[in-house]
């Protein structure tokens, strides 16, 4: 069948794997964006820069302090998440009562500043990060690098854990309720402003975690989040703003579709997601999993 279509199975499965890995990052990042938007009403355009910060924090920990990957995987999201907390307390909280546009412009500006500063210090070219799990398995129809398999699995675990935390725990219940009616949740005795800060910190930490995971696959560079954040926004729009499971499914799904497009019609591979976004917006403006 593959020969009929003129496509080697290695190419097909190779691209599917690439799609799955890209999808894993789309899912992790759009998840954070969706959670932040639901709670803060802010479209966090700094998300890509925060993903980059996560990768850089991991890389700097390695070259400056000799901190291994597995430690950085925990430490970097904490550091970058705390940076997010400071950002929210100092800047974002002043924007909640304004139109979405202000939050969008502020976070967009912040992303440019952060990326600019890193570019000035480290240049635009990427820094390699050594693969923490070298080697792989020959599956017959393709070669599967162990680290990439790990990333897909880790992303799945992270996404499902986030989903569980939001949909099945008490803190997640506060979060869902506060997304609907923050005034009433506060009148029940819950410190909603602190909950908002915490949510932003966790969302940013999630972006940073994706960044550390990405470091050994893509190069660590100041602009690594710039293209990604555009795609991730499309993913969030397609999945539906504020839908957790929607973000996960759409993230992985679109990664795969993008991979398949690379095999069958490579010219369209960089635009296919935006074409899908346009179609979804026309047919179902609230997104595939969105309500209302």
């Amino acid at each position, binding site marked *: 069948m593959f020969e009929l279509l003129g496509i080697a199975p290695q190419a097909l499965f190779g691209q599917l794997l690439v799609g799955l890995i890209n999808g894993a990052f789309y899912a992790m990042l759009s998840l954070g964006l969706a959670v932040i938007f639901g709670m803060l009403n802010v479209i966090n355009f700094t998300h890509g820069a925060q993903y980059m910060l996560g990768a850089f924090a991991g890389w700097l920990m390695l070259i400056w302090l000799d901190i291994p990957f597995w430690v950085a995987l925990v430490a970097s999201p904490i550091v970058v998440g705390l940076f997010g907390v400071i950002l929210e307390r100092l800047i974002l909280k002043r924007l909640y009562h304004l139109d979405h546009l202000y939050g969008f412009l502020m976070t967009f500006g912040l992303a440019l500043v952060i990326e600019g500063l890193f570019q000035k210090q480290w240049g635009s070219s990427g820094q390699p990060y050594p693969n923490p799990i070298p080697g792989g398995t020959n599956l017959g129809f393709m070669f599967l690098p162990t680290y990439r398999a790990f990333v897909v699995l880790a992303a799945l675990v992270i996404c499902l854990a986030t989903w569980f935390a939001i949909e099945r725990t008490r803190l997640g219940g506060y979060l*869902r309720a506060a997304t609907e009616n923050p005034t009433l949740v506060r009148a029940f005795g819950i*410190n909603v402003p602190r909950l908002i800060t915490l949510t932003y910190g966790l969302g940013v930490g999630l972006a940073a975690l994706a960044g550390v995971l990405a470091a050994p696959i893509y190069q660590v560079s100041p602009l690594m989040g710039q293209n990604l954040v555009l795609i991730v926004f499309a993913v969030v729009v397609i999945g539906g703003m504020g839908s957790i499971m929607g973000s996960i499914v759409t993230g992985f799904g679109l990664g795969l579709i993008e991979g398949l497009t690379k095999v069958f019609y490579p010219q369209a591979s960089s635009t296919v997601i935006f074409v899908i976004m346009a179609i979804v917006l026309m047919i179902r403006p609230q997104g595939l999993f969105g309500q209302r």
Partner: protein
Amino acid sequence: MADPLLKVAGLQAWYGESHILHGVDFEIGKGELVTLLGRNGAGKTTSLKSIMGIVEKRSGSIRFDGAEIVVRTSDAVARAGIAYCPEERGIFSSLNVEENLLLPPVVRPGGMSVEEIYMLFPNLRERRRSQGTKLSGGEQQMLAIGRILRTGATLLLLDEPTEGLAPVIVQRIGEAIRQLKSRGFTILLVEQNFHFAATVADRHYVVEDGRVVDMIGAAEVQTNLGKLQNYLGV
């Protein structure tokens, strides 16, 4: 009254530029059930929201359990032991019935157990896995009242719990409110439905144009019916 649980004095409140409350004064003793009666737009709901700290701009004095709370944010008011059941009920659609019930955190000991709440409102037990907003209006009202009973709050602010409900449901809500009173809850009830209010309350305050203009005890209601009808425009 020697030592009221809640004493509101000279309470003023604003929504943006509009001045809604012009000096509201009333008090509630421990274990009392007191209503705020009045026409639409008189300032009853705003009074409740001001006590709860939901209206940001307010002045005057609200003393609860001896402490001044007019300066506190709403989460701090809740933790002091006041619980609020809003007019629109505020059931969360992304939470099921039990999650709605368990949402408000316990702020002090002495609240009712979930089991006791289910005994009070058996419908809620049957529907505890349903999405909160899939309940009927009456059941949503039961849920909105039920979920503030767990927290250990001693003062309940109920905003029009009978609004839009069938008479048989109104009766059941009335029974529940009487049970809560007999359990020792202090209740401040905002009502448009005077006939309902008269069956449960110890005293009635009449609110007009952002002020309390009269106070009528339960025993004096019959002799003051004409005056009340005039106040309420019924």
